[in-house]
């Protein structure tokens, strides 16, 4: 409980006590716990994208905040997940890969602040900065997909490529007068090529015909 007081008093004892830092100096993240609630990730078969050079699902967060997206008053997400499942969403279990929960918590102002395991936090001059281990996240997603048997629907993939191609064509058209569009178009063209290449069937290794010895004639 935080009080607004104009001064603090210290108790004096004659016998020495283990030193305790004052509460104000205890190190916590300079962020409010209520702004980083615990969450569950949701998967939808229509949401696939190109992450770190792979087709992977674009998951969304379901914040387990009472009042948010039908999470109940005690923070129970059962009804929220049931409602979302009617729309095709599937909750990704926190223990889908044992020992690798995708949420981590840090001590922050007012409790625990929750982040994705692949969000890297750094304090620079008292300011909190975050970066992302995108490849680590993509590796994790790949293993989750393998475990749960999720693969992108070919039509969804084709739709994403077509959409990106349409944007790329627009950027290419604008390229002569827009350096940024030209840059985007160049990158997009590379990504489209990689996306298309990923759809090529993997060629089976060539197995040389082996001569099957004809059965011996019985004499």
């Amino acid at each position, binding site marked *: *409980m*935080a*009080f*607004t*007081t*104009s001064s603090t008093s210290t108790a004096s004892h004659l016998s020495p006590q283990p030193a305790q830092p004052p509460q104000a100096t205890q190190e916590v993240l300079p962020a409010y716990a*209520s*702004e980083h609630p615990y969450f569950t990730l*949701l998967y*939808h078969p*229509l*949401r696939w*994208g*190109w*992450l770190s050079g792979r087709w992977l699902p*674009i*998951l*969304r*967060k*379901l*914040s387990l*905040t*009472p*009042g*948010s*997206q*039908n*999470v*109940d*008053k005690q923070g129970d997400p059962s*009804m*929220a997940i049931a*409602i979302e499942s009617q*729309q*095709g969403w599937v909750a990704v279990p926190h223990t889908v890969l044992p020992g690798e929960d995708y949420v981590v918590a840090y001590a922050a102002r007012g409790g625990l602040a929750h*982040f*994705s*395991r*692949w*969000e890297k936090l750094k304090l620079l001059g008292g300011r909190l900065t*975050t970066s*992302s*281990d*995108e490849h*680590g*996240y993509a590796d994790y997603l790949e293993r989750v997909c393998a475990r749960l048997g999720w693969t992108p629907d070919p039509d969804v993939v084709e739709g994403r490529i077509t*959409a*990106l191609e349409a*944007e790329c064509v*627009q*950027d290419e058209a*604008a390229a002569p*007068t*827009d*350096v*940024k*569009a030209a840059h*985007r178009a160049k990158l*997009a063209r590379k*990504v489209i090529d990689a996306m298309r290449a990923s759809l090529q069937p993997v060629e089976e290794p060539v197995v040389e015909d082996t001569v099957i010895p004809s059965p011996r004639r019985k004499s």
Partner: protein
Amino acid sequence: MADEVTFSALSDATVAATLHQELLAKLGDRHSLWGHPAIYYAGSVNGTGSNVRKFTLWGADLAPMAAVSDGSSASNTAIGSYVGSGSVTVARQALMFTSTDLAGMTWGFSPATLVEKIAESMATAAKRRFQALLCDIVDGFTTTVGSSGVDFSVTNWFSAKAALQSASAPGPFLAILHPQQLNDLQASLRAETGPMQFVPATAELMALKGQGYAGMFDGVDIFTSSQVPTANAGADRAGALMSYGAVAFADGLVTPQVAVGGIAIGSGPIYVEIERDAGMGANKIVGNYFVGVSKAQDLMGVSIITDS
């Protein structure tokens, strides 16, 4: 020359610092779309027997007529696929400060007392909470545009708008973007040629639409919020472009219990009370807000997931 009356010579007749009699607003994102007509109000849970508010999506008028040959009987149409529903679960959001008497009596800003000043802040706190609940939703539309790790561009903007138009989503549209996404959109727009123009917010428009109003582009009001969530493990931000009515909220009103003691300030959905704790020599200022926000119609919104 000696023994001049300098400032340091005054010594005990001076103080280290004095407080300027004005409270300067600390930098922060105070914006909220609370009360914006784009957010559908699903009603109050008061007296309903449930904290879940359900609303009906009626589409019987969308059932198509079909040709029937002369003299034949028309077949019945199942209405089920033309009627749907959504729901909003209302829960309590609260904030409390405890202000001691000593803090109160030494408070040096008039005319408001410390307790009054803290009580005033509850309205903003509730509206920011509403904004947080709203932003929880914007990453959750099934339709997405943008590429992970790639800046938001005007091309993505038109893809999002095209997706809404393809779904017959009615205008007007509204965009909620992370400030970084707005920066990227503006950077992309700088190089655009032709009649497209971003109309930045003016002081008058911000007074009308709030701090987060960034401007208008392509006939769409754009709002920014630092509470727009991250996506793809923090690599991206997930804002949204949506129709009016894509998101719904419901609330509940506290019935004042004057006989219990304490002072209730104001009325309406944000209920602020001051509770006296004589034993502690302190006043507790408590704000309660009962609200819930959820998606109303998925196809009325597009999540914009781009580099953060």
